[in-house]
């Protein structure tokens, strides 16, 4: 330690120290273990909520430590007096006004002839840091709860859908038996009423299936198994399977494709469902007697399937909502179509999982074009 030569220099040193402590908002104390004399800096008194002229005793100091923290504090100090190591401890104190504050205390004991004679230490208020920590912890806790809640929701939807599907399937089989003549011929009116019930049940099954599909994709459980697939063949298959629907609505399907076959590396089952959904929508939202044009083309890195209808179209403001969960857009056919508002949400998720893109161009009352773009490999 450099020797201080004059009282003026000592005073300067003390001033510098006081300034540093003030700047760091740190309070300082010194405890003469032998005489029991305790000296506190003004900053320390401020940190403890005391007036500058307040007299401090060790007992008074101990009484101000938050009751739950007293034993731990005492243990730390006791150990410092035995081992001579510097301690650092976070603890709470109670101000005279009853408010509780967090402090970070540091201290060290000094020894003469192997006995502790003096302790020096500092304290600073860490209320802000503690509050921030508590906020972070609360946020983390909240997040954990939300994640759990979300997965409970997915599980619930999945479970409820499974449970709903079984009775709906039974209704389908029994109504189906009646409608398809397994219990003899039905008078026309009865057949008509049963058909309404059957169709309504079909809608219910579709919604339940959509809910399950969405719960599945939201839970990240969908696995994409890519294989070389001829999209022309695939689209032809979809159109063939839905022929009865187009016929019933007197809609004309035009299929254009440049090369004879257009291959892409996709999960054929999933992409088939994607295109089924888009083509089915095109038919449902297009008035009777109009045309739906499907164009398949190959590009350098991608293939596109364009489904163009002459339907009701989608307003600009609604296009953004199109691929959101549970969003249904009102138009003159939406009530008739029904639907769960989940089909396009699922469709987009599946296209995304392929690294592809789905987009829409539309004009109200003119029609919509859905464009699915998929990587070739």
């Amino acid at each position, binding site marked *: 330690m450099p020797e201080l030569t004059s009282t003026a220099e000592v005073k300067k040193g003390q001033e510098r120290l006081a300034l540093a402590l003030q700047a760091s908002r740190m309070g300082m104390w010194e405890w003469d273990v032998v005489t029991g004399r305790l000296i506190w800096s003004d900053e320390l008194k401020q940190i403890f909520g005391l007036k500058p002229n307040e007299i401090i005793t060790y007992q008074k100091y101990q009484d101000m430590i938050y009751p739950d923290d007293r034993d731990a504090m005492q243990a730390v100090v006791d150990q410092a007096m035995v081992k001579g190591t510097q301690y650092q401890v976070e603890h709470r104190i109670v101000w005279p006004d009853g408010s509780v504050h967090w402090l970070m205390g540091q201290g060290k004991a000094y020894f003469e002839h192997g006995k502790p004679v003096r302790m020096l230490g500092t304290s600073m208020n860490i209320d802000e840091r503690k509050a921030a920590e508590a906020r972070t912890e609360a946020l983390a806790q909240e997040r954990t709860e939300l994640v759990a809640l979300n997965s409970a929701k997915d599980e619930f939807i999945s479970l409820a859908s499974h449970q709903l*599907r079984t009775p709906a399937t039974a209704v389908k089989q029994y109504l*189906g038996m009646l409608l398809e003549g397994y219990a003899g011929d039905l008078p026309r009116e009865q057949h008509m009423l049963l058909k309404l019930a059957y169709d309504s049940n079909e809608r219910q099954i579709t919604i339940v*299936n959509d809910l399950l599909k969405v*719960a599945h994709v939201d839970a990240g459980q969908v696995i994409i198994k890519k294989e070389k697939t001829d999209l022309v063949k695939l689209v032809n298959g979809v159109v063939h399977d839905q022929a009865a629907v187009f016929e019933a609505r007197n809609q004309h399907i035009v299929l254009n494709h440049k090369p004879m076959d257009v291959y892409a590396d996709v999960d054929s089952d999933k992409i088939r469902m994607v295109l089924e959904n888009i083509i089915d929508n095109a038919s449902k939202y297009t008035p009777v007697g109009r045309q739906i044009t499907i164009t398949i083309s190959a590009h350098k890195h991608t293939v596109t399937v364009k489904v163009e209808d002459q339907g009701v179209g989608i307003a600009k403001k609604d296009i953004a909502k199109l691929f959101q969960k549970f969003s249904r857009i009102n138009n003159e056919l939406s009530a008739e179509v029904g639907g769960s508002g989940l089909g396009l949400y699922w469709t987009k998720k599946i296209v995304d999982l392929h690294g592809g893109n789905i987009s829409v161009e539309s004009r109200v009352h003119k029609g919509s074009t859905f464009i699915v773009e998929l990587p070739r490999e």
Partner: protein
Amino acid sequence: MKKILVVEDEQLLREAYISILTKEGFQVTGAENGAVALDKMHQIKPDLILLDILMPKVDGLEFLQRANMAKNFPKTKVIAFSNLSSQVKLEQILELGAHRQILKASLSPKQLVQEVRLVLGMDAET
């Protein structure tokens, strides 16, 4: 007369399938889970099994494993009733010898009969 074993835990559904297929001229037996189905396999030696996948006790997958279809019943066809959330299991089921998978609730009675005839190589009824 072709023999069909319907393995379905839901009684109402099982009875519906049995009733439809019986009316179509098949000899149909029901089983409420995979364990019961395993007991009946050797006695019946079905031409076709309609197999639900999600069942209590022994499910469809375990049934196929334990029946060891390729070895013990090489001539028996299997139509598995899948559901959308059992994708991984479905692959296994096809590997274990199922011939066709049908999404549950997707077929009307007549359509189901058509599938059955198709898988059995019979002329589809028009």
